[in-house]
């Protein structure tokens, strides 16, 4: 038994609120019409390859990648393309969506499974199946796997440090074998000797399941327990906790010989290689005080949020609903309405009432918590002051670009200052050339 868990410096301890941690993953029925977003990854939006009226089956390619940093999109159901329309995405922007009418037959159109694939075959399969980083960033995985320099370690992010979200926890517990298999395939694809899965100490069951699966597997995969602390799952913090390597500002983990991917991504890779299944569904947590039937669900990409709300509403009325968040409460995006649809990066949907909404800011008392607890060693207090003075050049001197917007500063602030919000404004202003 391990008593001192690996971790990073500083950070915070928001209440975990993992209400749904014990609830098994349930398949949620697909609605009659799904809208699959074409921009659910970092990079160029995918280009539709189907037209209104086309027949599609589960796994049929419906939009192709527009360039190297882009990802394919596949049909989540069988049926007919109803149209291509512009809709809001969970991240707040708009994008073209392919609307598909479900025929509820679920006839499949999958790729042939690969047995004993080479690294090139794995990378090609990942690209074909449209797999992107499913932790939230949505970076196309085949780009990460493209070799540049020597990679000796493959790290899997199973920290799931955001409060409320439990979909990765359930996936690791129930599908440990496939997660470990995915880790093995990913490590092979980048030529790493070893894969390490980092799991926070509050997911004991998931850790035990992974440890058993690692013992069953012949590959060099290991599960490591991490301290429960936010943001344990941030890329640079995870690399430091697991390997002691420091990723310099502006650099990627690849620069220190590591590649990091989410456990759900690994699961998708295992499915893609062993079953030939493109990425068209994902695990999703529905939680928060205003959810009647909380739980972890397998949902098909393109399922509208209002459909999920109806399925999980229980006895709750929409009148008490104050905030809806796609993603975790620390870094997720508040939704203006329930029209967006589940994307490959949507890990949770939280329905909050009045009690869970934030307070009004008061004057900074200079307590220094934001500075002492910033995982990136920045000075949010000084950056906010510079932003209020519209001195954006000064924010650059304060290394504002190193901020990963984890939200620890705003969380710990006793005066409830909008610190990370000010940092976002500074970054945006600098990008637009304002000084």
């Amino acid at each position: 038994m391990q008593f001192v868990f690996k971790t990073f410096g500083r950070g915070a301890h928001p209440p975990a609120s993992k209400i749904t941690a014990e609830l098994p993953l349930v398949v949620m029925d697909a609605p009659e019409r799904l809208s699959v977003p074409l921009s659910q990854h970092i990079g160029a939006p995918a280009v539709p390859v189907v037209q209104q009226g086309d027949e599609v089956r589960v796994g049929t390619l419906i939009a192709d990648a527009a360039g190297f940093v882009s990802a394919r999109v596949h049909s989540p159901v069988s049926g007919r393309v109803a149209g291509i329309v512009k809709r809001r995405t969970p991240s707040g922007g708009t994008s073209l969506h392919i609307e598909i009418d479900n025929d509820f037959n679920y006839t499949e159109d999958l790729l042939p499974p690969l047995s004993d694939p080479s690294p090139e075959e794995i990378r090609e399969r990942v690209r074909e199946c449209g797999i992107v980083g499913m932790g939230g960033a949505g970076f196309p995985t085949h780009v990460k796997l493209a070799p540049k320099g020597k990679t000796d370690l493959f790290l899997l992010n199973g920290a799931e440090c955001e409060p409320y979200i439990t979909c990765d926890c359930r996936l690791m517990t129930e599908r440990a074998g496939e997660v470990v298999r995915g880790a093995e395939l990913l490590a092979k694809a980048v030529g790493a000797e070893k894969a390490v899965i980092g799991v926070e100490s509050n997911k004991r069951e998931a850790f035990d399941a992974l440890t058993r699966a690692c013992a069953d597997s012949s590959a060099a995969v290991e599960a490591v327990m991490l301290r429960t602390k936010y943001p344990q799952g941030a890329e640079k913090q995870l690399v430091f906790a697991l390997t002691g390597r420091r990723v310099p500002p502006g650099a990627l983990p690849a620069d220190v010989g590591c590649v990091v991917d989410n456990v759900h991504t690994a699961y998708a890779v295992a499915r893609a290689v062993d079953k030939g299944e493109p990425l068209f569904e994902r695990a999703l947590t529905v939680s928060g005080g205003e959810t009647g039937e909380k739980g972890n669900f397998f949902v098909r990409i393109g399922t509208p949020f209002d459909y999920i709300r109806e399925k999980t509403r229980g006895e709750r009325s929409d009148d008490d609903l104050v905030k809806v968040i796609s993603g975790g409460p620390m870094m997720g995006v508040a939704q203006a309405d329930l029209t967006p649809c589940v994307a490959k990066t949507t890990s949770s949907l939280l329905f909050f009432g009045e009690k869970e909404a934030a307070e009004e800011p008061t004057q900074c008392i200079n307590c220094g918590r934001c500075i002492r607890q910033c995982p990136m060693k920045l000075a949010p207090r000084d950056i906010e002051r510079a932003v209020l003075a519209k001195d954006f050049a000064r924010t650059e001197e304060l290394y504002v670009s190193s901020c990963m917007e984890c939200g620890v500063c705003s969380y710990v602030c006793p005066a409830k200052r909008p610190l990370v919000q000010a940092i976002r404004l500074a970054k945006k202003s600098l990008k637009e050339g304002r000084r």
Partner: protein
Amino acid sequence: MKNLRVSSSPHLTSPANTQRIMLDVLIALSPAVIAMVLLYGFYPLFLTVLSVATAVFCEWVFNVITKRTQSVRDLSAVVTGVILALNLPPVVPFYVPIVGAAFAIIIVKMLFGGIGRNFANPAITARIFLMLAWTGVMTKFVLPVDLSDGANLFVYFKQGVEINLPDAITTATPLQTVKEAISSGGNPAEGLNALDMFLGRIGGSAGEVSTLAVLIGGIYLAVRRVIDVKIPVLYIGSTALFTAIFFADSGYVGEYVWTYLLGGGLMFGAFFMATDYATSPKTPVAVVIYGLGLGFLTVIIRKFGTMNEGVSFAILLMNIVTPLLEKIRRKPFGTPRKSVKDITDAVKAKFPRKHVAAEEGGESVGR
């Protein structure tokens, strides 16, 4: 469906707020207040009430006149009032805490922008102001009430309004005893008892005398993570270190160290005043310099100064240095650390050795 609230993440905030932090400080001050009443009776408690009432009233009036958002509910004025009262001698005329609290709140705190913006600790600045304005009153200390003598806890109310206390009830503070030893070269601990100093059965400022009570409060603040515990630890540690260095040839190093640690307001200053949010640095390097500077100045002033105001002046001076210390920027996480060779290379590039430059110049001319 009605409108949903949209805001930028994070959507959670910690339960900590300004009022709760100030309440924690008040809880941490309560052992010192209790010790004060047990030692000197109810008169200093009466002064504390006056001080707190004045502080809150001044902040309220200031906010009303200047049309600022009312801030008395955050309890920070109450904290300033209590800390100021605990810094005064147990028996002073009633108007002393009133003037002091008004000075602390209006001049040091509110005129500079209120909570979090003051340039120095309001209580310590007010104490120094009172010390300069009413030196006679502020340097007369009484003995703790001796209940076995038939006296009661209300005994000092009689002397309260007098400016000149009768000599019969005044006493020297341990630091005054030590000061005499510095000039005479004798044993500084002569006539002092470490246990009495630890419990507070000595003459001194009302709330500072009991090291035990102050430590209980200080540990509470550290456990609740209200203060950065590095500051008091460094301050107390560096005071011990510099005392040992400055009195190395006195022959009484051990005696000087323990009298300096237990005497005066060192413990109180280290836990409750040096850690003031607005006037203490936040980054580790700056905190180390701040803590060492506090200890160094305290010992210098106590050894060479005419007034025994080491802690007050050390904190005031380091408060003023804090904005400079804050200019030490921390590099973001992951910035490659400089090796010794990098640093020496940088120094060499900045200061080229003259004869090397001359040689190179000579060569180029030669060719």
